[in-house]
């Protein structure tokens, strides 16, 4: 069973969650799922997108990336998307649906660089959930592939919801 949240403009209305709540942006009202509603094996996506020159440029600016392969051109036939940019793909996949809590761990595995303007598709699956010291952990793995299905990168994010106050 979910809990109903409401956003005023883009203001956070549910301050309990960190990652999840921070990324609930779309709707005036929505039915949020809770940790208890999610099962291991639950799938999210697929979702396809392209990273524009403008987005790549802004991401490089804010993360202070200076390498020419991220800034202009590369031996891979074009400018590359910074490797950690798709690491936040948990947001479009599940961030608007689930209050996942604070980020506890992050894993990123790279297989092939992703070019600016190239179409890619991400999909994710809940690979684990557990309770430890009262915290509710969720392990979400999301995989990015190019249009031919070739693996680009795999990210695994572990989030934790703190114990509820009495």
């Amino acid at each position, binding site marked *: 069973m979910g809990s109903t949240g409401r956003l005023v403009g883009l203001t956070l209305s549910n301050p309990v969650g960190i990652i999840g709540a*921070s990324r609930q942006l779309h709707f005036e009202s929505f039915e949020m799922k809770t940790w208890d509603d999610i099962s291991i094996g639950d799938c999210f996506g697929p979702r396809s997108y392209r990273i524009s020159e403008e987005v790549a440029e802004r*991401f490089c600016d804010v993360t202070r990336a200076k390498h020419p392969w991220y800034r202009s051109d590369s031996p891979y036939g074009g400018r590359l998307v910074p490797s950690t940019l798709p690491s936040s793909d948990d947001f479009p996949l599940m961030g608007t649906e689930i209050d996942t809590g604070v980020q506890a761990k992050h894993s990123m595995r790279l297989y092939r660089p992703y070019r600016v303007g190239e179409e890619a598709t991400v999909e994710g699956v809940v690979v684990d959930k557990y309770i430890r010291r009262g915290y509710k952990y969720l392990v979400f793995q999301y995989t990015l592939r190019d249009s031919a299905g070739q693996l680009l990168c795999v990210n695994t994010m572990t989030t934790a919801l703190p114990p509820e106050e009495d």
Partner: protein
Amino acid sequence: MAEVDVTKSADGAVWVEKTTLRQAELTEFAQQITYRHADLECPIRNHHTDVELAQAAGFPKPVAEPLHYLAYFDNVMLGLYEKNWLEHGELQATILGPAFAGDSIELRLGPAEKVEQDGSLEVRHRLAVLGVEGDLLTVGYVSVHRGEHAEAA
């Protein structure tokens, strides 16, 4: 030679950077995460961008996304290993505590260590991010699994 432990000291680290997490950067990073998928045109307000909302969530100040400063390690590894990083790279991070807007943090990357795991060779650098009081915010490692750099390590 004494073992280098970047969680305890910067001595022996191959890369150290002290930087301040400016609010404008936290806001821009939060907007990047959402804008690129949601095509939003209005400013985002959340606990990464707004003091009141951060306090409502139990924090003294807006909180940095760990992925924001972890991107700095990607930049360093690309400079060190180029194609080998992009095709065989791995990052593993455990977040121990929050970094806030205006905080000065220190990022450290340890020296290359050769590690054999699951029958394959990898070159690994331990990483650490420390907060204002020298407290550990994030620990983990970045590694390259195959390629000439792993063989040469």
